[in-house]
């Protein structure tokens, strides 16, 4: 197991957080104040001496503070001169950098830390009401990579792109570094001094005029502190604010059952799944578990296996929609009507559904009745083995209806379980609204905002910004300063979850302790510490606060022993709750749905979605996520208004044209992006862009469209759209998707697609199991010379099962984190110079109005007859005996001939020195086992060579050979659906060998005799023959 026992961890000197104020590490100021004489070389003596004068130091600090370095590509004279000066001035100081890094020299070396050997710690990542159990790779106390925790039910050893990239947020150079009062840097002491009299005054008046608005959480400690707070200040209010949340799901269950439950979907147990606007494979909560279970029900190894069937109803393509066997495109405002039509249809088949009759009265005109009827029959046929799920954006009423459908189909308790939530603070828009009212009426004089950014994200119908100004004191706590903190008189720096002690409950109530991997980089305090300070006006460390809470949670054995077991495992075994028996609450559902009328809207609707890159804006300053293209639109660095071609033509809009959207006096100008398979008269926009003070990555990227929406709904109807005629530069990583304006290209791609992404239906596969070989005629290949045979030792290979690959991008971010892949910026992506080693190709096929979407992950195929190797004039890319196509960065001269000759176009070239200007703090996030590439060299997927070598060293020490599972590539490790499998193909029992023996195995472009080591398993769709038109 990779997880190490970490008793020594707590005592490790480097992590000693008792004097948090002084634990700032590794800033340029520190570096320069160290007398360089002892280390600098002699002939630089004069410069060294110069460097010790105050004047020089202040000059250097002012000239190059951490925050001033821009993204590459912009060369100004100032920067040029600065760089020249810097290289001269710092030349003599480089030698003295090492000893002053606080983290490297151990005065008292902690046990079990061997420099160069990473350590793995279990922890958990809180994410609103969700959390993910994780394992963090740390190098000498420096977290670099996050993976899922195999034992943890929330991640099952896998991660998604948000979890993967959250490590970069730790090293965000724009994080807030010190408390601020009225914009001036102060100390935490100053805040405590300020809070003491306030606290006493609120104790006297029971907290009248005191309000806390925090993010939602599922944490025993935070919940305990909140309860104590409300006990101590009974008149105070404490609400949770989330711009996008699962509130409607919980409210829907409340309507249906009279109680709030946490639904847990077991897709693996369902044969037929209906997703109603639910992107459960990607952007919904518990996506990792959902993907994993869905893939378990989907995976086939032979033609005799069965697979689940997925129906999907949505207005705009989602990742889940791409996996669907049947997809119904309807405008968002008709989705409730669709659900009602389904209920009516199910009732006709004798299913008893406890919704009031009013639901049957809903106008269902325009819904494809045949589709609904066939779907209904399929669901009825698979009663108890089906699953209906609605997305977070759907109204509570739709969720209540969906509960009733699952109830009627007897799925509840079979494919969906409901758990009693614990230790949670739910976001409720109604509470937020009443808080705003109270603010407006001046009833609140002290407002505490914890880790939220409502000034940026609140909708047009609640004017939080001006309401906030009515309070006398507004205290903002957060990891970064943001749009909201700028308007508050106090800003208190938060800390990243990798620096803090804390605890969380996951969706099934499994308890985890969040443990710090590194001492806080800046002067932040954890949320628990803040809450405790608010509560008691005293400071207690988060470690003590969490242990205090857990004293009541760990009662069975000795506390310390069990506590250490939790730290080691990453969760408290057996703390997950049991599913509850649930039933329809007739009175509640009748009251909730009797007057439900979704109505119909004419005109153009705009639907809002959370962003795959920024979520709701909170990840906006994360370069990895920002640059990673959206899986469906393939647009990076911007949000766009997706629209169908027909509607765009109707509105006179062109692709990439800036269009002005206005509703109720609110306006936003968003670029148009034409998408196949989008509902007509419907436009989809992503939230979370257009930040104005979110940091160097996020600022002024995209458009903030929160103002176009109301707080209760993700839909705005009757929006007026006018084209501006101006075109907008959009960085899209895949210009051609198989459909579009250029007919020549579209036709060609449709012709090629069956060869590139081989696909069939389950029925056809059963009648012709070898269909993959029928697509391309591959002649017998003979060689002019005796070819090298790769039959000895380890032979590395990869297999990618397209049938379960959902296109979720997790592999791409995992690779970026593992292999130090640089972020290049919008202009470079727009030029086609993105650096991702593994990309997800997305194609549409079939009818332009209702196409199918497929994904294909492409990384270096490690061809045995690699075209790149032959053409390199300096042998910088060569083959090793284990079948790896190795790239020797040191030897590369940068002719780019290899990239030209690569038929898969997986080679990435360093057009500029993309890494030289990384702020020092961001450099800390890099994997020390992977070379950082210099300007002018080629790079590409190495099959995680560093991991192979690590495994070789380990197994050699253990006097054995590598067995399957010893080497796990980063992309494989994180893949939630196990679509990517890597291993030794020379071992007939390895998982990858077995996959390659399946009859769906094919080589991409195998006909040109490249003999790739990566092969694919063809995609299948389990289509309902009755729906084939």
């Amino acid at each position: 197991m990779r997880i190490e026992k970490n008793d020594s961890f707590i005592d490790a000197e480097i992590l000693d957080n008792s004097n948090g104020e002084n634990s700032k590490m590794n800033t340029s100021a520190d570096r320069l104040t160290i007398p360089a004489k002892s280390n600098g070389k002699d002939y630089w003596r004069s410069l060294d001496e110069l460097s010790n004068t105050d004047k020089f130091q202040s000059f250097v600090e002012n000239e190059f503070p951490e925050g001033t370095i821009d993204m590459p590509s912009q060369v100004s004279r100032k920067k040029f001169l600065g760089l020249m000066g810097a290289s001269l001035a710092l030349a003599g100081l480089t030698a003295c950098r090492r000893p002053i890094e606080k983290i490297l020299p151990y005065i008292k070396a902690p046990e079990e830390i061997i420099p160069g050997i990473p350590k793995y710690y279990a922890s958990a990542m809180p994410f609103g009401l969700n959390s993910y159990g994780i394992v963090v790779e740390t190098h000498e106390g420096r977290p670099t990579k996050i993976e899922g925790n195999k034992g943890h039910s929330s991640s099952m050893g896998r991660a998604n792109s948000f979890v993967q990239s959250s490590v970069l947020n730790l090293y965000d150079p724009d994080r807030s570094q010190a408390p601020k009062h009225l914009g001036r840097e102060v100390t935490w002491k100053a805040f405590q001094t300020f809070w003491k009299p306030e606290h006493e005054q609120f104790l006297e008046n029971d907290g009248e005029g005191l309000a806390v608005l925090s993010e939602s959480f599922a944490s025993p400690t935070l919940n305990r502190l909140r309860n104590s707070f409300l006990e101590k200040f009974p008149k105070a209010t404490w609400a949770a604010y989330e711009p996008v949340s699962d509130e409607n799901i919980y409210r829907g269950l409340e309507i249906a059952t009279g109680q709030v439950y946490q639904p847990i979907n077991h897709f693996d147990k369902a044969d037929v799944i209906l997703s109603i606007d639910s992107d459960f494979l990607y952007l919904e909560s518990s996506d990792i578990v959902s993907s994993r279970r869905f893939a378990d029900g989907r995976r086939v190894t032979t033609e005799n296996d069965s697979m689940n069937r997925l129906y999907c109803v949505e207005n705009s393509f989602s990742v889940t929609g791409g996996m669907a066997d049947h997809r119904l495109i309807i405008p968002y405002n008709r989705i409730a009507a669709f659900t009602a039509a389904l209920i009516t249809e199910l009732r006709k088949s004798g299913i008893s559904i406890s919704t009031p009759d009013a639901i049957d009265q809903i106008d269902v005109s325009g819904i494809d009745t045949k589709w609904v009827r066939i779907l209904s029959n399929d669901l009825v046929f698979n009663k108890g083995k089906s699953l209906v799920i609605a997305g977070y954006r759907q109204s509570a009423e739709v969720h209540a209806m969906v509960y009733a459908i699952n109830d009627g189909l007897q799925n509840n308790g079979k494919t969906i379980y409901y758990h009693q939530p614990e230790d949670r603070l739910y976001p409720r828009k109604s509470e937020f609204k009443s808080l705003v009212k109270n603010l407006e009426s001046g009833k609140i004089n002290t407002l505490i905002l914890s880790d939220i950014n409502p000034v940026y994200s609140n909708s047009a119908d609640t004017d939080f910004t001006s309401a906030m100004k009515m309070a006398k004191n507004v205290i903002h706590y957060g990891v970064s300063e943001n749009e909201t903190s700028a308007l508050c008189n106090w800003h208190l720096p938060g800390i990243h979850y990798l620096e803090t002690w804390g605890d969380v409950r996951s969706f099934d109530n499994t308890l985890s302790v969040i443990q710090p991997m590194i001492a806080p980089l800046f002067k932040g305090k954890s949320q628990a510490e803040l809450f405790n300070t608010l509560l008691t006006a005293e400071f207690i460390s988060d470690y003590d606060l969490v242990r205090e809470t857990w004293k009541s949670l760990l009662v069975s054995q000795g506390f310390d022993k069990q506590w250490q077991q939790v730290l080691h495992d990453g969760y408290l075994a057996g703390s997950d709750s049991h599913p509850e028996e649930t039933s329809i609450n007739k009175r509640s559902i009748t009251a909730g749905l009797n007057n439900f009328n979704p109505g119909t809207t004419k005109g153009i609707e705009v639907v809002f979605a959370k962003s795959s890159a920024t979520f709701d804006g909170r990840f906006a300053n994360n370069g990895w996520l920002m640059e990673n293209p959206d899986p469906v639109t393939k647009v990076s660095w911007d949000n766009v208004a997706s629209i169908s071609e027909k509607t765009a033509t109707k509105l006179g809009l062109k692709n990439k044209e800036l269009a002005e959207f206005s509703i109720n006096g609110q306006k936003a100008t968003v670029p148009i992006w034409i998408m196949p398979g989008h509902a007509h008269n419907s436009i989809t926009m992503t939230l979370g862009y257009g930040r104005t003070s979110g940091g160097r990555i996020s600022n002024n990227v995209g458009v903030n469209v929160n103002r176009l929406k109301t707080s209760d709904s993700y839909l705005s109807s009757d929006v007026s759209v006018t084209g501006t005629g101006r075109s907008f530069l959009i960085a899209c990583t895949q210009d051609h998707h198989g459909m579009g304006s250029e007919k020549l290209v579209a036709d060609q791609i449709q012709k090629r697609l069956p060869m590139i992404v081989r696909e069939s239906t389950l029925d056809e596969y059963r009648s012709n199991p070898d269909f993959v070989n029928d697509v391309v005629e591959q002649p017998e290949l003979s060689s002019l010379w005796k070819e090298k045979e790769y039959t000895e030792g380890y032979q590395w290979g990869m297999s990618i099962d397209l049938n379960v690959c959902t296109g979720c991008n997790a592999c791409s971010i995992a690779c970026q984190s593992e292999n130090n892949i640089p972020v290049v910026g919008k202009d470079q992506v727009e030029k086609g110079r993105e650096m991702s080693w593994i990309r997800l190709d997305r194609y549409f096929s079939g009818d332009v109005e209702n196409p199918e979407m497929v994904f294909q992950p492409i990384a270096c195929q490690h061809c045995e007859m690699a075209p790149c190797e032959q053409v390199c004039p300096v042998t910088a890319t060569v083959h090793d005996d284990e079948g790896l196509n190795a790239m020797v960065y040191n030897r590369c001269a940068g002719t780019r001939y290899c990239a030209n000759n690569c038929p898969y176009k997986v080679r990435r070239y360093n057009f500029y020195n993309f890494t030289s200007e990384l702020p020092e703090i961001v450099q800390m996030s890099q994997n020390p086992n992977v070379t950082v590439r210099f300007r002018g060299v080629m790079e590409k997927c190495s099959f995680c060579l560093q991991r192979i070598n690590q495994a070789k060293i380990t197994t050699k020490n253990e006097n054995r050979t590598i067995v399957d599972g010893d080497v796990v590539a980063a992309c494989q490790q994180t893949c939630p659906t196990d679509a990517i499998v890597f291993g030794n193909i020379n071992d007939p029992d390895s998982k990858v060998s077995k996959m390659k023996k399946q009859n769906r195995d094919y080589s991409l472009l195998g006909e040109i005799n490249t003999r790739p080591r990566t092969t694919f398993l063809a995609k299948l769709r389990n289509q309902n023959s009755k729906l084939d038109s």
Partner: protein
Amino acid sequence: MNILNKKPIRSSDTASVSPGSMYEEVPLITGNQTFSSVTEKICSIVENDPPKMWYVLFGISLSLLLMLVGSVGYLIWEGTGIWGLNNPVGWGWAIVNFVFWVGIGHAGTLISAVLYLFRQKWRTSINRFAEAMTIFAVICALLFPTIHVGRIWVLYWFFPIPNQMEMWPNFRSPLLWDVFAVSIYFTVSLLFWYVGLVPDLATLRDRAKTKARRVLFGILSLGWRGGNRHWRHYELGYLILAGLSTPLVLSVHSVVSTDFATSIIPGWHTTIFPPYFVAGAIFSGFAMVMTLAIIARKAFGMEDFITIGHLEKMAKIIMVTGLMVGYAYSMEFFIAWYSGNEYEKFTFINRAFGNYAWGYWIMVSCNVLIPQFFWSRKMRTNVTVLFILSIFVNIGMWFERFVIIVSSLSRDYIPSSWDYYSPTIWDISVFLGSFGLFFTLFLLFIRFLPMISMTEVKGVLPQADPHHDMYHNSGDK
């Protein structure tokens, strides 16, 4: 006796062109030149102050050269990112320019070596500056592969230099073949040119009025005194070098074409490339010689030496090679269709109708349609027309390389990677700058060295081949 019986290949038999008679040719050298008038005319250009026009042209060229130096400096400072290259299109204008300039050079070698071996005496008036053009074009060509690499400071890795790491270049890579082919070509061309210059340098030495010139030309002329033995060795050496150069005419551009032909990219992976590239190279080279010849004869009043007859012959070669190139274009299409390979077929349809169709049609118009004017003798003998058409051919041949390189890369196998390449200001400045380099060198050459080979021109004067009247009706005057 046989030799005497054989009618020498020279066209001074008729004194003037009679319009309408297709087969009568202009004499090689006109204006009743004598040995001394030839020497006087050609040497005076080198010895006297150049016309004002020279200074103007030199100023422009030098400015462009400075732009090149600046652009290359910035390129090395910042990286190849300043060019418009992207992921599918890893080679852009730089490699287009490389192939373009290498191609230009070919005509020089063809004229001086191949035509020499075939005893085409009309070459004497143009071979010197055609060879100079070759050398300067190859210098320009060498510039581009040098600067287009990502790490220019490790360029010596391309050469098989013994080293302590025992690292050798990859002999399977066509880029390495290029290194050998082009460097050999440059060396042989330089030697050939210099050997041809020796007797003329001696003439300049003998006429030198200043000590500096006397010493300089004295060193360069290698002690040439015009003795019989000198001539014997000279002729033999020249012949050997011509023999060595001749295969290079075919090999260099064939090797360059293997950069593409040995790859697997549809549109590059074509066996027709070697002959097609050689034909194209001669085509473009002659167009460039024509352009330069017309400028030079006008600027320095050399109409007697570079006659309309020379130009007409070059026009004929341009037309023939243009037809060959046109044949290659159509054969590529035929093979793409005949192969039944989907990728191959699409590449060619895409060339003609896809994202770079504009480039393709510029290429076809300039290289296939425009040379058709040369069917007409009127066109072939009209200097203005020749000048304009030769420039069109130069443009067309640049676009040919652009179409081959860029359009094939921009849309290859996997459609997800398809992208469009457009040049940046730096691509353009380096290209224009290379013309600055070329013309700076060329102008320096015509200013300081005899641009026409006096020795060889004298050899084709009627006086050099005296005969008795019984063999020839038109006596030498």
